[in-house]
């Protein structure tokens, strides 16, 4: 067998020149080009949807962050105060004082649009009551020029944004066409302005009649406490369970059964976890309804399978040679796992955890059943324990509540709430990415 070519059978047929493409090669190249094109098309469709989503969320949601305010500098003298307090209809008296003040300011700038207390009430709500309570609480402000920033009604806001035209206005309890002249005059005088609405981010939800004052702040706190519960419970329990199953547990029928069940649990609809939470935590354990603690517990149940599955995958991906190396120098099994395997699996575990938490953050269905949807959170919790135990709402639940209300101004709030939710999520992801960077090692 010295000459390998002499015994080789001659291969006949295919094109002899390398410069011309054989028909088979052409077909193979065409198939590859087609496949690449499918990939690009799929990617473009995906990107298109993403851009569409981002644009529509931003376009609809950004207005929720601004607020139309009526900003008036105004001085109340002691005589006016005494006179108003002596009247029968005290708030009406204050409204009249306010109307006179604003009219005077408009006239100063050469704008003469007569209006009365009714107009003010339609445009800005019950101003008289606000003024009265302010001066009763702050008697030292009497006689001193004070700037009031009073939120305008949602219809005024929509009119200024161009979403509400004069033709659409039907004279009635809420707005009259003549009122819009006043709005125009106020806008021209610079009394009505648009300002960043901190109240939307920090504030609490309001009743159905006051969309302008509604904020998402309290439910952000609710979501935060829920995520805290989920993280504190599901990460250690999930990781411990995975380490036991992956590194210590014997392989037998029982552990196989557990494995199958964990995979199945990850696919169980979240509302099932909600009903479980209702039965176990509220009806059996008598934990308070609508509490972020219970919400967190339910979401923990939902998140655990995700964390267990991803942690086990991460542990499996650590090369066995590392375990051998550790055991070889006389490390106990636990030392091998905690000193060497776990740090290497950490990036994967963090990825799984953040996916689980993100899922939990956006979950509404299980919250329905434990009473966190529909509860209108109006107050900040006044401490850590009350943050966990006092009734609260959560961001997705709050968004759901707003979207279900009839006043269109709440719609805008819902979109704005989605932006806040996404920002919260981005922050969480950012922290996870930073942690990953810290733990990532080459091997």
């Amino acid at each position: 067998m010295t000459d390998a070519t002499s015994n080789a059978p001659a291969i006949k047929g295919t094109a002899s020149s390398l410069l011309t493409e054989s028909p088979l090669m052409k077909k193979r190249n065409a198939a590859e080009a087609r496949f690449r094109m499918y990939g690009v098309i799929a990617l473009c469709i995906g990107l298109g949807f993403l851009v569409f989503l981002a644009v529509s969320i931003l376009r609809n949601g950004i207005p929720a962050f601004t607020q139309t305010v009526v900003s008036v500098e105004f001085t109340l003298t002691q005589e006016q105060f005494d006179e108003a307090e002596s009247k029968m209809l005290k708030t009406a008296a204050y409204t009249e004082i306010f109307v006179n003040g604003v009219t005077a300011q408009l006239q100063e700038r050469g704008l003469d649009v007569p209006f009365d207390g009714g107009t003010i009430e339609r445009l800005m709500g019950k101003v008289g009551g606000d003024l009265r309570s302010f001066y009763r609480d702050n008697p030292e402000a009497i006689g001193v020029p004070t700037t009031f920033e009073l939120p305008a009604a949602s219809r005024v806001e929509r009119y200024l944004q161009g979403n509400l035209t004069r033709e659409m206005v039907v004279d009635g309890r809420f707005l009259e066409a003549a009122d819009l002249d006043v709005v125009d005059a106020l806008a021209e005088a610079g009394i009505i302005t648009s300002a960043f609405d901190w109240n939307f981010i920090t504030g609490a939800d309001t009743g159905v009649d006051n969309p302008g004052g509604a904020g998402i702040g309290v439910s952000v706190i609710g979501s935060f406490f829920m995520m805290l519960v989920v993280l504190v419970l599901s990460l250690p329990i999930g990781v411990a369970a995975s380490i036991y199953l992956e590194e210590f547990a014997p392989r037998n029928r029982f552990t196989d059964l557990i494995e199958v069940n964990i995979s199945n649990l990850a696919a169980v609809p979240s509302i099932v976890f909600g009903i479980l939470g209702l039965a176990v935590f509220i009806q059996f354990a008598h934990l308070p309804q609508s509490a972020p603690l219970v919400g967190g517990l339910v979401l923990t149940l939902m998140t655990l399978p995700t964390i267990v599955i991803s942690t086990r995958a991460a542990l499996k991906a650590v090369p066995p040679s590392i375990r051998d190396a550790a055991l070889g120098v006389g490390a106990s099994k636990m030392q091998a796992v905690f000193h060497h395997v776990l740090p290497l699996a950490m990036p994967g575990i963090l990825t799984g955890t953040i996916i689980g938490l993100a899922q939990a953050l956006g979950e509404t269905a299980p919250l329905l059943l434990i009473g966190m949807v529909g509860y209108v959170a109006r107050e900040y919790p006044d401490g850590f324990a009350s943050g966990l135990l006092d009734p609260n709402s959560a961001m997705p639940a709050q968004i759901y509540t707003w979207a279900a209300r009839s006043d269109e101004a709440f719609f805008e709030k819902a979109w704005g709430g989605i932006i806040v939710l996404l920002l919260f999520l981005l922050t969480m992801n950012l922290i996870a990415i930073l942690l990953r960077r810290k733990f990532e090692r080459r091997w």
Partner: protein
Amino acid sequence: MNDMTPVNRKLGTMQDLKISARGVQVYYGDNHAIKDVSVDIAHKTVTAFIGPSGCGKSTFLRCINRMNDTIDVARVEGDILIDGEDIYDPKVDPVQLRAKVGMVFQKPNPFPKSIYDNVAYGPKIHGLARNKAELDEIVEKSLRKAALWNEAKDRLNAPGTGLSGGQQQRLCIARAIATAPEVLLMDEPCSALDPIATAQVEELIDELRQSFSVVIVTHSMQQAARVSQKTAFFHLGNLVEYDDTDKIFTNPQDSRTESYISGRIG
């Protein structure tokens, strides 16, 4: 260079017997991997296990520090005594055993930590150093013994995985000897190395013989001839022949041994 000519060797007598295996059987599930192997390994010698792939030499090696315990389906029968103590006695903790019987693996497997931490890990978990100075000393001594000190002393905080293949393997040897073992098991330590790195590791093995008894599994008969004083030939799970290395290579008693070393089987 005539690799097959065994060098002159002084043999330890059977008085300093270190490991003694009697009737060892290993099963992987239904597969009978080691069949009734009995072997005596002397102290301060290099013993080579040779044989074709899948003959059970690595399996037997892994019995000596009970690394087979980590495989669920593996079952070991028979007695293995180290210094007269049965290592498969229920009272023996395999973790303690492995501190006494170090192991170097086929593929260099340094921890993804610094060179210093790689070597210091064993002494740390076994409490061999009372303070940082002692630990530094152990690390330096181990790296010197593994002939890595000169290359590594300026980069002790660099990751061990950043070293070259040969350096990594010597780092693993340093890590194994840092716990002051009495026996060093080496499972084909040079199979992933180039000839130069191999020569360095072999030189090292010869030096380690001063303080440890070394058991080395190798595919290369030349390597066995170069580094070992005793050689055991395994075939299909049986220990076919076990004798002085020069005797195995010059005057094998069994026809299978002869076929293998002359290249007709395996």
